[in-house]
């Protein structure tokens, strides 16, 4: 009986799942049929722009780590290794799209115009967010795993209700992007998001960055089958892309976004990548993973790969790379300066904007607490 019953499944599990790659780790282009059109649209300048983006966000990331070590941040969640996945996706989106990130989306934040300093502020404990999601069309970082997948889906349902999908007007048709990790796929909320997306044919692009780890757990703890297949039983087709290959990431993200935008329904993109650093600055990966694996993935570094391409196959001048590094240094200095000079917010902020309209208990507690603080000031004054 097994043949009929588990046939598809077994073949799916046994064979290597198809992964779309357009740029080899050695920096050479490979053909990819239907996606080549989108890659062809990319000028060498565009690619240099991608390179610059990746280097800069990697530097932001390094600075985040350093500032945490110096006690300037409470925590930092590094994106190291996921630059291509995020910049590729970020640059494939249009202004009217709306991204719902996790806590590690510094590359996407970059593309959506959220200043790195703002991200640092949140990790410093100044606040829990600090940017206007509507201004950037980039929602707040979401820490509770998987929650944002539903928000993205609801937003996409709203796009549908507004009729802003499938009109053919590229400045009007919009999508939402639901970002989540490999670990997050196990959360009920992510599955419910697939359910609603499928049921309402919502223009949402599920963007799973499979960085192989959920803190210490390898993806095999979450699933025995490739994650790009997760949506199939919900009516959400999936693709796996080499997440360390920015050309493939961009091209497939563009193709997928356009497909969703056209009204074809939701899709799931699995970016197959690697968390090269620790989960967060509080984590110690040596406890649970092999240095050999880290080395293996180091050879697939997304930035090195694009640099090789630029060096081998374009006439990018050598000082371009030096300039980018200088820009990175400047950026690093700027955000370090911004970080250390952040002032602790006034205590009143605790009581602010819990609600839009006033709440008497909060007002009462605010008044009492401020009076209490004042009593110290007074008694100190009295001394």
């Amino acid at each position: 009986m097994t043949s009929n019953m588990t046939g598809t499944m077994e073949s799916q599990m046994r064979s290597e799942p198809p992964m779309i790659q357009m740029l080899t780790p050695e920096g050479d282009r490979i053909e990819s049929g239907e996606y080549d059109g989108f890659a062809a649209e990319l000028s060498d300048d565009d690619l240099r722009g991608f390179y610059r983006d990746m280097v800069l966000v990697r530097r932001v990331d390094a600075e985040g780590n350093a500032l945490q070590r110096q006690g300037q941040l409470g925590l930092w969640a590094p994106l190291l290794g996921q630059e291509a996945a995020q910049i590729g996706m970020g640059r494939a989106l249009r202004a009217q799209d709306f991204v719902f990130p996790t806590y590690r989306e510094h590359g996407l934040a970059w593309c959506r115009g959220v200043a790195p300093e703002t991200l640092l502020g949140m990790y410093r404990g100044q606040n829990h967010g600090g940017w206007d999601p509507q201004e950037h069309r980039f929602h707040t970082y979401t820490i509770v795993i998987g929650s944002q997948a539903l928000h993205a889906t609801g937003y996409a349902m709203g796009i549908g209700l507004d009729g802003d999908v499938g009109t053919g007007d590229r400045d009007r048709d919009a999508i939402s992007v639901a970002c989540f990790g490999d670990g997050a796929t196990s959360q009920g909320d992510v599955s419910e998001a697939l359910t609603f997306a499928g049921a309402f044919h919502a223009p949402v692009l599920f963007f799973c960055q499979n960085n192989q780890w959920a803190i210490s757990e390898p993806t095999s703890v979450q699933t025995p089958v490739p994650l790009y297949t997760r949506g199939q039983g919900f009516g959400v087709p999936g693709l796996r892309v080499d997440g360390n290959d920015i050309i493939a990431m961009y091209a497939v993200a563009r193709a997928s976004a356009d497909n969703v935008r056209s009204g074809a329904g939701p899709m799931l993109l699995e970016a197959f990548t690697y968390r090269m650093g620790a989960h967060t600055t509080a984590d110690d990966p040596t406890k649970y993973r092999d240095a050999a694996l880290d080395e293996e993935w180091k050879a697939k570094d997304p930035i090195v790969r694009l640099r090789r391409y630029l060096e081998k196959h374009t006439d990018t001048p050598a000082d371009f790379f030096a300039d980018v590094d200088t820009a990175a240094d400047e950026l690093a200095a700027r955000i370090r300066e911004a970080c250390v000079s952040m002032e602790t917010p006034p205590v009143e902020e605790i009581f602010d904007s819990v609600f839009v309209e006033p709440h008497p208990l909060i007002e009462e507690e605010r008044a009492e607490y401020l009076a209490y603080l004042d009593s110290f000031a007074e008694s100190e004054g009295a001394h």
Partner: protein
Amino acid sequence: MAALPLSKAITAGLRKAMDDDPKVLLIGEDIGKLGGVFRVTEGLQKDFGEQRVIDAPLAESGIVGTSIGMAVRGYKPVIEVQFDAFIFPAYDQIVTQLAKLTNRTHGAENMPIVIRVPYGGGIGSPEHHSESPETVFAHHAGLKIISPSNAHDAYWMIQEAIASPDPIMFFEPKRRYWLRGEVDESDPGLDPFSARVVREGSDVTLVTYGPLVPTGMDVAAAAAEEGTSVELIDLRGLNPIDFDTIEASVRKTGRLVVAHEAPVFLGLGSEIAARITERCFYHLEAPVLRVGGFHTPYPGSKLEHHYLPDLDRIIDGIDRALAY
């Protein structure tokens, strides 16, 4: 408007809110053709279409989570949860997302979402259909909670909830759905967070809300016959609680009994008791007494009349307060 059953007053309020604001939409299980298991949304899908009265997949977390996303897009979703205990699968989205997004975004994002929850017992239902979970939501900052006890309030408070830019949980006393009452369409009366002194009295204050307000009226009437003057307060707002109105009453009566169907242990009565004792320490002739559900699972319906505070148990509470 003629006298309406409480449930139909909500229907009328929803209809009015949808007429007034095209961004208002309803989402929930079975709220379309069926009109909801309590028929509160009856006729609305027919009139407003499937895009504004949305039958959702059977997933409460999904309903709340996608409603949050729709709110980010500018919509004002009004969620129907089918029965009280079925709100728990959505607990996480409610307390870690809905309740906190305004704060997380420093007010840049509003969450004008209403969650309608039919609650309470007394209708002979199986498990999970008779609970009163308001307390656990009230403890979390970021949610406002109101509960009407009559048709007029139901009609207005649902509209006020929908108009609010803040997330509001709207607890509907399901065993009073069929209770008819006049609705004055011209005047909402009190704002939804103010308690109402339903009946003035001088010997003891009885605070309750939702399904027990009619019981409280019977209690006050019965007590009056025995010569006890009960001041009955309908809380209406469960978070914030209108402590000023209770305090004013207790300063007058010197005694307070709080009754609710929710378990006494850590029920709203505990907060009311604690705070009113603080505010009225020198005015209280007796400790604040509480009458409510037991610290047990809600029992099978054959036994629920024991679990639910009724006229006798509330009068017993009043007698105990008066005995001090």
